[in-house]
């Protein structure tokens, strides 16, 4: 399934959120941080150290590609990142795995819940 992307699973929460943020559009680091906070309604926040540590790892694995600076940006120090095809496959595999987990959890919770007379 998913060209062997399963061997990278499960992903850490930080990796999952970063890939998820980059799945929609190309973002710079600060944009990724804001998007991650938005995904979790502010419950999960990435610090810059954690973010760039994960980005370093993801670039090495070629799940994420660095696009460099954009001239029109308001801060010239920002670099943009995008998801590669491999990163997208890994994200899809993780999403499918999580969907299975959620389905299994819902199923068990319904069985385990007390029946009403």
């Amino acid at each position, binding site marked *: 399934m998913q060209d062997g992307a399963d061997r990278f699973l499960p992903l850490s929460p930080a990796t999952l959120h970063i890939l998820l943020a980059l799945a929609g559009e190309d973002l710079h680091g600060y944009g990724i941080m804001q998007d991650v906070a938005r995904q979790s309604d502010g419950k999960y926040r990435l610090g*810059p150290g954690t973010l760039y*540590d994960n980005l370093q790892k993801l670039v090495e694995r070629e799940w994420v590609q660095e696009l460099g600076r954009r001239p029109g940006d308001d801060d010239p120090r920002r670099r943009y990142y995008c998801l590669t095809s491999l990163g997208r496959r890994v994200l899809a595999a993780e999403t499918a795995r999580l969907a299975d987990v959620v389905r299994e959890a819902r199923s068990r919770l319904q069985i385990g819940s007390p029946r009403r007379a």
Partner: protein
Amino acid sequence: MLRTLYRCVLRLHPPRFRNRFGDEMLSILDHAEKRAAFGLLLDCLVSLARQWILRPQFHPDLALANSPQLTSDFIPSFYTLRPFRPRATAVIQGLVLSTAVFCATCFAIRYSWIHLLHVRIPEVQFESQAMQEPRSNGRALLHNPAVPPPSAVKPAPAYPPATQAQPELPELQNPPENTAPNSGESSQEIITTAPKKAKPRPLVLSAKAMLPIPLQSYVGIYIVPGPRPLTIWIRAERDELMMEVVGGQKQVLVPVSSTKFAVYSTGNDWVEFLKDGDGTIDRLQLFRDGQEFVAGRQR
């Protein structure tokens, strides 16, 4: 202030990480709210530890050093071997394992019923300056004509090995015939050259406890034959065997075997007792300063 501190912590990151992401991290700090700046600083500190401890694979600077360094004439100046960086988890596991093995070894030594390790090692005693000065005076007596004739003296085998440092020792002195130790004119001269104060000697295992036969078996007067015989006294004192060459100091003999003894104060000299057909000790060989003296026991 906080920004300066943040930049300092960023500078401490590995060069590759700092060059690649330092500007962006600083940019995030500049755009963040002021109340979040302290949290970002903490995050940067955690990142610092994480990058140095857990991410050694992302430190390429040493790899750059491996490439040949070109000089102005394009000749490589030196090469270095490829660096080996163990994983941090491997280092931690090794530390824990080493500590466990060390503790287990200490426990085994302390509580084991096998006592093979209870070996007494004689302490090494070095000569002090106070002991060497009188001996330098004693060098004047080296060419004393009273030394036994060459026929009674032959080269002795080195024991212990000659590589050991050997302090200077006075030569054997020959007192007048048939005189007791420390008596007579010649003895008086020698006494003045002997050290006045005996230094404290560390405790060693007593000869009585180590020898299978009583100390009295060795005790006696041994005489090196010659025109002017040399007298050697062997005494048992406080469970130890003492040797006194007439005119010299008493020296403790440390048993190496039932017949071989090392002279404690020198380390290089030794004594061997020889037995006759009945098993009684009747002779003594003294190996001293590369010479061998054979002395017969007075009955």
